[in-house]
């Protein structure tokens, strides 16, 4: 099961401008790939950014080896349009997996804007759950669910979302961040109720500034670039099949790259340890 990691980086200029929902593109080293990572939090005074990521491929594996005081070769941001924050009424903020961190600043901003914020967070198991208190402190109500039932309720966020919709609160907006399937299924749950559902898309990107079109997604009848037109879109308009297919373009290469890197990394480690 992939593990989750928290990374705090010094990036004062980015921290000064960061807003909820934005992301950075990083490159770990000269041979590294450029990948987007959502900004989970920032501290302008300290000049830092906090990023939570899941260890899945070569780049994220490289990141997990960093020690305090190490450098990331490149970090650029803040990229993407900020989340649309307004006074909607009752807002359900859904976070799954790394999205538990990404949804936090949105929940915080929604609450500051005068909304009633119900946060729902999901982890596959208790040991993958984090930021419970942090989410609680920025929400009117926090609901936790774990896939295996090892902590709080058993089930996925969709189960909890259905309960909320069936409950007393009239939900005015759902805002979801997490894996593509989770966001897609949340949008399907809210669709029959006509509850506006905002999702934060995570297609493959290269430059992250609108230059390449790698991250194109179909929303309604239009092709959009998630990096500059998003990453936030109306979940009921997104062509999910297309997004899922495009996310898988390099799956074979990603596996090969990771295997080669792990192999090389083992050789390096054994050399260091003599």
């Amino acid at each position, binding site marked *: 099961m992939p593990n989750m990691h928290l990374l705090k980086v010094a990036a004062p200029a980015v921290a000064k401008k960061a807003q909820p929902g934005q992301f950075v593109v990083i*490159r770990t080293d000269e041979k590294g790939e450029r990948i987007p990572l959502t900004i989970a939090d920032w501290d302008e005074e300290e000049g830092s950014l906090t990023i939570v990521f899941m260890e899945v491929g070569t780049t994220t594996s490289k990141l997990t080896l960093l020690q305090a005081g190490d450098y990331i070769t490149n970090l650029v941001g803040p990229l993407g349009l900020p989340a649309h924050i307004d006074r909607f009424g009752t807002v359900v903020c859904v976070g799954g997996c790394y999205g538990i961190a990404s949804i936090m600043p949105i929940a915080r901003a929604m609450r500051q804007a005068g909304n009633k914020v119900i946060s729902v967070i999901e982890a596959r198991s208790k040991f993958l759950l984090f930021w419970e208190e942090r989410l609680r402190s920025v929400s009117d109500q926090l609901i936790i669910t774990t896939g295996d039932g090892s902590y709080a309720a058993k089930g996925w966020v969709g189960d909890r979302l259905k309960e909320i919709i069936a409950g007393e609160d009239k939900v005015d907006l759902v805002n979801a961040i997490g894996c593509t399937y989770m966001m897609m299924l949340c949008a399907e749950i809210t669709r029959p109720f006509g509850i506006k559902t905002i999702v934060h898309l995570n297609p493959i990107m290269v430059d992250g500034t609108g230059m390449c079109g790698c991250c194109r997604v179909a929303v309604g009848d239009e*092709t959009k670039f998630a990096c500059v037109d998003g990453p936030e879109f109306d979940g009921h308009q997104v062509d999910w099949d297309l997004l899922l297919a495009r996310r898988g373009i390099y799956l074979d290469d990603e596996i090969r790259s990771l295997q080669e890197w792990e192999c090389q990394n083992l050789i390096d480690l054994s050399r260091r340890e003599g």
Partner: protein
Amino acid sequence: MAKLDLNRVPMPRQDPKVRGRNFNEVALGYSLEQAQAEANRCIQCPKRSCTEGCPVGVDIPDFIKAIREGDMPEAVKLLKGKNSLPGICGRVCPQETQCESTCSLAKKGAPIAIGRLERFVADWERANMQSANSPSNQPTPNGKQVAVVGSGPAGLTVAADLAKLGHSVTLFEALHVAGGVLMYGIPEFRLPKAIVQAEVDYVISLGVELKLDSVVGKLVTIDELLNNGYQAVFLGTGAGLPMFMDIPGENLNGIYSANEFLTRVNLMKAYLFPEYDTPVKVGRRVAVIGGGNVAMDSARCALRLGAEVVYIVYRRSEVEMPARREEVENAKEEGIQFKILTNPKQFLGNEQNWVVGMECYEMELGEPDASGRRRPIAKPGSEFIIDVDVVIVALGTTPNPLIASTTPGLETTRRGTVVADEETGKTVKDKVWAGGDIVTGAATVISAMGAGKTAAFSIDEYLGG
């Protein structure tokens, strides 16, 4: 008068069969003997019409004379006096429509090979004058601060020219290396990245401060720059937004914009995957849509990455192709197949959402359109299918709207370009200049450099030069 020598000295090139499988430079450059033989053909006419044909006004007859006399340091000095990026220009300028087209010998069909000589001088400097990277006679800083946004050909030229005049220049670049399209767009085999890096290093050595990973419009706005000590701003952010065709199936897996394909290959070095982490898909059968230099670059990259068949699919005929003649010839020699008068109608995919085919129309040419070229018209009922694994769409680019949308007071056109005075590069916004593709739409490296030179002159004048 001595008899005119009409035999241009050819430049050695890699054999097409060999070069089609490697990323090394295609053209190998002159030796000193070859360069001097070519320089000897120059009649040093008093008209100096070649210099007039050069967008940055290089003193062409003078540097050619220095080559002839074997005074290479002098040739370097003369060339770099006007052009800070000669190694780049010598390789990618369309000399045949500029300096060489106005050469007195052009009428006889054998203009001096100015581009090849320029390249020779730049390469000689890099090989023999390492110390040239630390110019000795730098002016004392005059305290004026200029922000240059974008480190492509326009931005590098403005930065170099203003730094040479004593201004403090900060150069902002969104990507992780400087050079813009010279780094991410033009392939290694046509413009080696080490040469771009050396010329960027030269500009930095003039005292220019380079800020990489800095997206102006996001990290900092133009107005914030102007409110924080910069007395002038130059916008040279190019035309980076790729155009698609807006036809069915265009978002299938395996369909790239040329920008993405070339960025993966050149900037991210996908041709060295998995040593480098960024992958690229090539497949066996590749179709590149478009007829410009970017289409040729994409096709030739795909071939080098191992594609078995690479097509250029272009809706007009070869005569109308905007690519340089030389690049079309290079592509043909390497085995790229040209499907002219062909235009895609839609892309066909398989169950995994991968492109497998391209349905095309046969086209015919009608009356000339607004561009002066004959308008392509689809022949009804002419549809046919080309089998493909990968498609690269190289139909041009438009300016990225990021700057315009975050800078109140700029005027833009319907095409998204920024309006600037042709004589000065000045925009309608106070203290802001612009030049290169952001103003003209996608054009050439040297025209961007010409615009940079014009703007640098105007900015210097404004700052009280």
